[in-house]
């Protein structure tokens, strides 16, 4: 039984539209907090001199840590899962994460990220029809080098 598509022309037009750039800071305390939460024991994430002895500029960012956007109480931050379009679905799940690393990211780096919706697809699963939204965020460092690409999958159903 074919279901009618919920992907409208308006939604399709959003695919590939780049967001305004966001500034993302990577600092030492944040690296340590993240590494500690994941249970790392490798001292490269905690001891700057040790990290330097292993060839890093400062504490490297552990896998999955792509810095923190600068928080400002006077600017509303829109959660990533809020889309600029409406869909008939009320519930949302985090479907997956895919991060590719191109260059080391270290404490002291200031990254610039831009995001876009890379893809919209539909699928029918045990919990009914669902919309699969693939978001892509690319990160550049202060030298203009692309350091990482983040792909996130959100499922609305």
């Amino acid at each position, binding site marked *: 039984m074919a279901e009618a598509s919920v992907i409208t022309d308006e939604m399709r037009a959003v695919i590939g539209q780049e967001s305004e750039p966001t500034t993302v800071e990577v600092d030492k305390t944040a690296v340590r907090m*993240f590494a500690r*939460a*994941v249970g790392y024991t490798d001292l490269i994430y905690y001891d700057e001199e040790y990290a330097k002895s292993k060839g890093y500029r400062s504490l490297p960012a*552990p*896998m999955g840590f792509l810095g923190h956007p600068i928080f400002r109480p006077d600017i509303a931050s829109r959660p990533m899962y809020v889309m600029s379009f409406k869909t008939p679905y009320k519930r949302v799940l*985090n479907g*997956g994460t*895919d991060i*590719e*690393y191109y260059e080391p990211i270290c404490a002291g780096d200031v990254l610039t990220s831009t995001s876009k919706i890379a893809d919209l697809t539909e699928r029918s699963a045990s919990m009914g029809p669902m919309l699969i939204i693939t978001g892509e965020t690319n990160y550049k460092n202060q030298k203009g080098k692309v350091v990482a690409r983040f792909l996130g999958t959100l499922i609305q159903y």
Partner: protein
Amino acid sequence: MSDQVYFEDVKEGQEIPSLTEKCTSQRLVMWAAGSGDFYQIHYDKDFAQNTGLPDRIAHGALKHALLGRLLHDWVGDQGRVKRVACQYRGMDMVEENIICHGRITKKSQQGGENIVELEIWAENPKGQKTTPGTGVVSLPSRGQ
């Protein structure tokens, strides 16, 4: 850190050492602070149950980060983790162990790098794979 692993010493089909972490409520709070994800289903039991969940659940991104640590701890000082990807297929509950595994699927040399691809996954204490994925790392060569 464990001893350095070299490209020549690993083969397709081989499993890498597993990693187990218990998702205590304290770890989930530390993750919330470290990641900046303050959604209450991960640390507020009443809130989680009001959304229909049996209890607090582990953050998906924490499981992704644990799979990243699995690879980082394996590749050693001279290796590099190049890609970590996973899908969140099932929930992992607070106070339960998350067990991370990896198995080598492919070895290749690309652009002067020794590339190893792996199937990676996190499972719960019942052995259910809640978080399947793939990883790509580079390893040093004994000849270099």
